[in-house]
């Protein structure tokens, strides 16, 4: 269980005015959760994710973790301990698929044999074992994002938490649908906990257990939705469309 509390987060613009990005924002992330964060563009979604991933420690608030999910929280330095999938294609282009996945394991000095086993398991998980020796430029955008997920999972993140910043926004609609389904499968099989930033309401409705709707700057949580429809979700389903409509209503 994670708890994120942000009393305030601001940054200085080049002309030295202080810009308040986030204010009194607080939410929990449960084990095996799938939380989507949506909101108007530029509202600080990415900032929340960067704070969660530990890139940005310069905020007033705290990031806490309860190892036994028993409400005993301790301060948590998340950098290097949870998975991070950015919006752009982020595979290191000079490394092969396999070496990309092994990057974090190398950093952590995991024995080579174990690295091989982990890589094989993850490549099988996304059905890409024959692409081991390929370079990132030789595979499609959808495949790149799958490998990025493998790379994040390889370091065995705490509570299987990975944070994703609009990971499918650079993909065409069809590939995006396939990847959404793939992600759900991985999420279920691997018991992942996912925090997912998107501006796509349909995507949030299709994937998430919970959706947090943010306000404009300084961002606060406007509304929290819990989506009870079981997976796999049918986009033509009445309830699905009602939730989508509600979310849209809050966004406008």
């Amino acid at each position, binding site marked *: 269980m994670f708890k994120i509390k942000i009393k305030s987060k601001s940054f200085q613009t080049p002309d030295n005015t202080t810009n308040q990005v986030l204010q009194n924002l607080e939410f929990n992330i449960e084990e095996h959760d799938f939380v989507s964060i949506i909101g108007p563009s530029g509202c600080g979604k990415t900032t929340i994710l960067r704070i969660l991933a530990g*890139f940005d420690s310069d905020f007033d608030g705290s990031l806490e973790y309860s190892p036994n999910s028993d409400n005993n929280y301790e301060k948590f330095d998340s950098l290097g301990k949870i998975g991070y999938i950015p919006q752009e294609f*982020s595979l*290191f282009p*000079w490394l092969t698929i396999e070496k990309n996945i092994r990057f974090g394991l190398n950093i*952590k000095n995991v024995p080579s044999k174990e690295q091989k086993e982990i890589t094989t398991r993850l490549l099988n998980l996304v059905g890409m074992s024959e692409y081991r020796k390929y*370079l990132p430029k030789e595979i499609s955008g959808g495949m790149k994002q799958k490998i990025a997920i493998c790379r994040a999972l390889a370091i065995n993140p705490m509570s299987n938490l990975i944070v994703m910043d609009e990971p499918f926004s650079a993909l065409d609609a069809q590939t995006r649908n396939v990847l959404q389904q793939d992600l759900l499968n991985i999420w279920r099989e691997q018991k992942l906990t996912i925090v997912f930033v998107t501006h796509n309401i349909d995507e949030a409705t299709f994937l998430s257990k919970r959706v947090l709707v943010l306000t404009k700057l300084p961002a606060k949580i406007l509304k929290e939705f819990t989506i009870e429809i079981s997976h796999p979700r049918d986009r033509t389903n009445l309830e699905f469309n009602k939730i989508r409509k509600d979310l849209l209503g809050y966004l406008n």
Partner: protein
Amino acid sequence: MINQNLTKIKNEINKKSIILSLGYFSISFIVFIGFWYLFVIILQLSYQGVRVVPYPHETFESFFNLLIHEIDGYTLWNHVGASLLRVIIGLFYAFIVAVPLGIAIALNRHLDRIIKPIIELLRPIPPIAWIPFAIITFGLTTLSHAFIIFIGAFFPLVQNTYDGVRQSTKVYQDVARSLGASKPQIAIEIILPSIFPNIITGLRIATGVAWMCVIAAEMMGISGAGIGYFINYMKNIGHYSNMMAGMMMIAFVGLFINGVFLLIEKYSLKWKLGD
């Protein structure tokens, strides 16, 4: 079967494209030589029959002669070797100073604001304008050459490295951090490989500039050997076909250097090319 046919077709296409390239190359060679003859003839007519510039065949003859026969104890190879050695020395020093400096100022904002203005101030001074400075400072020595080449090679190298680090997509560094990489690990595992193409480009430009600088420096008389010295010397004694042969050698060496860099790029930047 299909594969065999495919290879056959591929081979044939390759053969055709090689023949075609050779054809174009021959034409461009003939056009070039043609213009050269034409130029010499027109010049000769306008100088009332006095011929200054040698014909291509005379130049080629001198060129091949100079490869084998020594003048004052040196063949053309020796002169080129002397120049190249200077280039390598100067480039080496420029490389070990410019690349780390480029990385440092790109990563550190304070250093950037201190060093960048100095670079911007010195950059507009052409390397050739430093030659008199080099002569009075270091005398007629190898150090003088190295200094001129250093000046010429330094700026493209520092600029390309700097740009490389600046463009070295932040996202790779973020991902590496999220995978637990420390700052030194990021520098070695992420920044270095991602700026490698920029360094190669910088080095190629720098080598081109260095090659020009060494010839200019030799012509200005910082030495008693080298291809620039040779050209100038041949001009002074009026042996123009030898002079032109020296120029031809410069062209060939330039082509060769470029080819070497293309090969380096082809093999070391496989991940980047054809993106």
